[in-house]
Every structure is written in structure tokens, then in C-alpha cells.
């Protein structure tokens, strides 16, 4: 990725979490950048730093007792709906650039568009695919479309390569046929004709070889042949037709509207993190008229989503998969990592330094309970490691120490009866503190390849 592109992406996705910091309008805390090799900027920095400090201290003295709010909680919380099948949904509104779903995606990469690879882009992709919106530039293309383009180009390249190879074979066959015939002809005229034929074919073959030489390199092919993604509008599939909203009042073809089919889906750990740690979401059951879920109810829902039946709270042991996953998720999120599902690589989580659009995930997390009992065998670890090695990532075993059943139950009981939100928050924190995390990198080492 080019440096410029990375910079652009980092400016779009600058917040690691969906928290809006508000700065008091009166306090302008602007500090210029320091450039190491430019001493003038040091002076500039120092002077404005001092000025700002003086200003702020002055303001604080003036407004004694005024608490400076650093986290903006007044802004609306994001509504999450949980379906009967434990799917946590955030609606994606059309035409609002800063809708809730986009906000969650842009600030920390929460959730996944169900009809996209990760960023919810299905609507715009489909608009282009169905030719509902013809004007777009190459810059707007989504990552799915870029991949499709590259695959199309690769396919065309292979077809062309194959056709050159076949033509070449055909010409070579003709040449050898003429050479064979030359042995049996006698007249000079025929001989001369054949000579000419041979020369002509040989020239053709040379030309062809040159062409195929030029085509050898896929990159060269790419730069000279730009394949278009949506070339012509064929008849719509019945499935696609069902998506177009037919408004009888609008006759204009360009005004046909597409139905939004996609929503952002959150993992249970994400939904719980957004509620417990950030207090940024309100979770409602999808059935109409239901009340907002309390943190405890959400917790129960999340635990249950890992199983096919409900486990009563009093029967939980504290080592349920959701709890292990959540402890790990919370741990890495608090260290600033972007944590996403790793199901594609057969692990629990993927760790991104910044997020999916900016760089590939570096680490694959395999969550294990540190009980000493449930070690899988090494064959399994080895196959997991080979898969992950194949995509140039590092496998990390995350071992979670779990509290005893009695400790866990004691805290849960307290949470259940605690009515005060802040006190309850403290109890959740106490619960999370019972979980300890130890990481272990697992990597194959080939002694013979590592001798220098």
C-alpha cells in the first residue's frame, strides 16, 4: 500500500473506539507539530504549549467546581436489536453518511456487514451491479469489487496465455508438416512455394512469440488491459428484481430504488463490550414492545448464544466460552488492538494493529482455558499452525485463568441484587479482574533452515 493511501485511510479511521471526545470551546488546546530536524518548530511548540497551559489553568481557576466532561455521553446511544436466533443487528440507514452502523465501523471496526467481507458495502455494490447508479469512479470501488476486478483480469490473462500457446502449437505443427512434405516433392516450383510458406509461418511464429513474451508478466497485462467490472446490464435475476422498490409515482428509470438488505452484525463479545465498557449501545430484543436489556440480561443472552439451550445463571461456572472470549476480547481492546472474528482461519480471534482496511491481521488468537485439563493434542495444534503460517500470521495461544466456581457465583449474585449502576459497574470490573491472561506464541521452527 502506498504511503499516501495509508495516510488517507488513517485520517478516515483515526479513532480506535466510538467515543467522541469533546473539547470545551473556550479551551483551544492546539499544539503544533514538532519536526525533529527543525529547531524553529521546537521553539514554536514550547511557546504554544506554555501559552495553552497558562490559559487552561486560568480557566480552571475561573470556573472552580466545573467538571470537565471528557467523554460525550449525551449523544444518542446506538440501538442494537437482538433476534430470537441471537443475531445482534445494527441497522444500516441508506444515504446517511454517519449512520450508527458506519460510526461503529469507522471508529474501531466493530461488526461486520452480513453481505460484505467486513465493511458494509453491499448497498453501493449492488446499486452498481444492477446499473441503478451508473456514475462512479474507480476510486469509489469497494474492496470486494477490487478483488473481483483482479480475478477477472487474472482470468482474461490466463485465457489469452492459453490461446497464444495453442496458436503457437498449431504453427509449429504446420511447420513440421511442411518440412515432412518437402522430403517428397520434386518440382522446383513446388519447392519454392513451400520455402515461402515456411518463411511466412516462421515469421508469424516469431511475432506470436513476441506477443506472448509481452504477455508473460501478469502485471504488464494488468497495466495494458483494464477489465471492466460491470460491462452490460443483462436481464435482472428474479432475486434481484424482488429487491427493487417499485414506486408507481416514479416513472423515471434512474429513480428506481434498491431495498436495504444488509445490516451490521455484532459478535456477542462486541455487543457486551460496547455496553459494559463503553456504554455506547442500547440492546433491545427484536420482538416489538420489548424493553431495553440490562447489562445482566445482555450477559445472560450472550452466554446462551453459545449454546442451543438456556443455562440458568446459578448454574454457570465462570469458564463458559463466552466468558473466556470476552475476557480475551476486553483485554486486547483495552490495549488498543482491533479484535475481529477469526473463523476464516480456524481460530477464535484475529488481531489487527489498526484495522482491516489499513493492514493485514498479524496475529491469530486461539483461546484456551488454563485448567491443564483440556489440552488438545499436538496434531491439532500443528495443523492450526500450518494454516496460519500459510497466510503469514502468527499463532498465539491465549491462556485464560478462570476464577473458582464459588468466587464467580458470589460476584454474580451480588451483581444480580445490586441496583445502583455505578456499584454494579464496580462489581463487573471485579469479576473481570478474576480473569488473567497469558499469551504464548506458537511457531514452527525448522532447524536445518536456520543455521547461519
Amino acid at each position, binding site marked *: 500500500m502506498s504511503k499516501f493511501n495509508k495516510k488517507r485511510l488513517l485520517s478516515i479511521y483515526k479513532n480506535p473506539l466510538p467515543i467522541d471526545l469533546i473539547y470545551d470551546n473556550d479551551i483551544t488546546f492546539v499544539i503544533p507539530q514538532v519536526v525533529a530536524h527543525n529547531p524553529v518548530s521546537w521553539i514554536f511548540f514550547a511557546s504554544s504549549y506554555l501559552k495553552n497551559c497558562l490559559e487552561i489553568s486560568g480557566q480552571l481557576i475561573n470556573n472552580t467546581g466545573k467538571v470537565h466532561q471528557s467523554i460525550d455521553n449525551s449523544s444518542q446511544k446506538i440501538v442494537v436489536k437482538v*433476534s430470537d*436466533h*441471537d*443475531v445482534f443487528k445494527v441497522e444500516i440507514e441508506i444515504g446517511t453518511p454517519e449512520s450508527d452502523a458506519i460510526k461503529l465501523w469507522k471508529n474501531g471496526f466493530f*461488526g*461486520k*456487514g*452480513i*453481505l*460484505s467481507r467486513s465493511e458494509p458495502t*453491499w448497498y453501493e455494490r*449492488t446499486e452498481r451491479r444492477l446499473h441503478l447508479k451508473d456514475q462512479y469512479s474507480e476510486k469509489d470501488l469497494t474492496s470486494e469489487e477490487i478483488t473481483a476486478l483482479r480475478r477477472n483480469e487474472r482470468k482474461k490473462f490466463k485465457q489469452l496465455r492459453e490461446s497464444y500457446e495453442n496458436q503457437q502449437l498449431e504453427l509449429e505443427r504446420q511447420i513440421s508438416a511442411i518440412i515432412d512434405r518437402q522430403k517428397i516433392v520434386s518440382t522446383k516450383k513446388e519447392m519454392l512455394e513451400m520455402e515461402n510458406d515456411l518463411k511466412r509461418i516462421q515469421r508469424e511464429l516469431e511475432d506470436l512469440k513476441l506477443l506472448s513474451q509481452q504477455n508473460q508478466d501478469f502485471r504488464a497485462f494488468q497495466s495494458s488491459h483494464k477489465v471492466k467490472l460491470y460491462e452490460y446490464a443483462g436481464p435482472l*435475476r428474479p*432475486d434481484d428484481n424482488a*429487491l427493487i422498490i417499485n414506486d408507481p409515482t416514479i416513472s423515471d428509470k434512474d429513480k428506481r430504488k434498491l431495498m436495504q*438488505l444488509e445490516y451490521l*452484525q*455484532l*459478535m*456477542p463479545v*462486541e455487543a457486551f463490550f460496547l455496553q459494559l465498557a463503553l456504554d455506547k449501545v442500547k440492546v433491545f430484543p427484536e420482538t416489538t414492545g420489548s424493553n431495553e436489556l440490562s447489562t445482566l440480561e445482555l450477559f445472560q443472552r450472550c452466554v446462551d*448464544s*453459545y*449454546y*442451543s439451550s438456556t443455562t440458568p445463571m446459578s448454574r454457570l461456572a465462570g469458564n463458559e*466460552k463466552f466468558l473466556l472470549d470476552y475476557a480475551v476480547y476486553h483485554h486486547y481492546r483495552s490495549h488498543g488492538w482491533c479484535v*475481529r*472474528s477469526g*473463523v*476464516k482461519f480456524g481460530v477464535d480471534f484475529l488481531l489487527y494493529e489498526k484495522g482491516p482496511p489499513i493492514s493485514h491481521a498479524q496475529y491469530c488468537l486461539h483461546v484456551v482455558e488454563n485448567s491443564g485439563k483440556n489440552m488438545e493434542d499436538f496434531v491439532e495444534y500443528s495443523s492450526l499452525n500450518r494454516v496460519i503460517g500459510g497466510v503469514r500470521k502468527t499463532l498465539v495461544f491465549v491462556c485464560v485463568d478462570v476464577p473458582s466456581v464459588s468466587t464467580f457465583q458470589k460476584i454474580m449474585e451480588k451483581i444480580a441484587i445490586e441496583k445502583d449502576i455505578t456499584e454494579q459497574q464496580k462489581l463487573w470490573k471485579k469479576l473481570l479482574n478474576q480473569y488473567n491472561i497469558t499469551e504464548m506464541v506458537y511457531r514452527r521452527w525448522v532447524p536445518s533452515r536456520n543455521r547461519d
Partner: protein
Amino acid sequence: MSLVDQVKTNLTYYNLWNETKVIEFKDGSKIIAGVPPEPVHPIPSIITMDPNQDLEGNHVDNNNNNNNNNNNNAINNNNEMEVEQSSGVQIPQSPKVEYVYPVGLNEKISLKQVSQIFENLQIALNQRPKRITLGVVANDGTIVYYFVHDGLAKPKKN
């Protein structure tokens, strides 16, 4: 959305499969039939088990039968493969119907269940497909697809 709906939507609108429809079996389980936009890689030759012995439903027995019958059972040759191997040129094939069975990531699926799916399909279609695809739904909405062949599949030629 139920698992079946999730997988069906994903196939129709993300992977752009055509004519996706849900087939419900007598035992209440469901499978999705659909045609991919482009042919998925050809089904390799499969050494099949004898369908009649399968009906008993006992695993261990099946395995034994399978082993014993390997030599007797003719290898089910796939026409596509033959064409490919004899001429060395790939003939573009039109996509065929594939069957996708939705599973939750936390579900455990046994060989017996897989065998039952093949049985169900055989009854419903009067023909036993050579493979099905498991559509594994993760809790973030990702769906990963895995082939399951009805017997031993010859590795793909590279």
C-alpha cells in the same frame, strides 16, 4: 433470521447464486439448493459406498463395508474429469446445482448426521448427490463453506 435464512441470503445476494431454494426433509431438517454463478471446481472421482448398506445407519458398519467394498465398487467416473484428462483442454462447463447444509459454529456434526443428509437428499431427489457443502455460520455473520464428499474423493490435480 434463522440459520437457513442467513445462509440462503448470503448465497443469493453475496455469492450471487441463482435459483436458491430451501428443501425441507421429512425429519424437519432443511437444506438449500442453488446454482453458483460459475462452476465450482469439478467433483473428483468418488469411491462410493453401497447406498443400501448405508440405510442401516450404523457408522462402524459403514466404515467396514466401505473398506471391504472399495475393491469391488467401481470408481464412479465423472464425465467432466474424463474430458479434462483426455484432451488436456478444459471445456467450459455450466454450473450445476449444489446443496448447502447450514450449521452453527457451535454445533457438533457427526458422520451419522452427514450420512443422514445424503440419505434425505437421495429420497427427495431420487438421486444421490456426490457432495454437499456445509455452510458454517459464525456469530459475527461470517459464513464459511466446506465440501463434504460422499465417500473418498481423489485429490484435485494441480
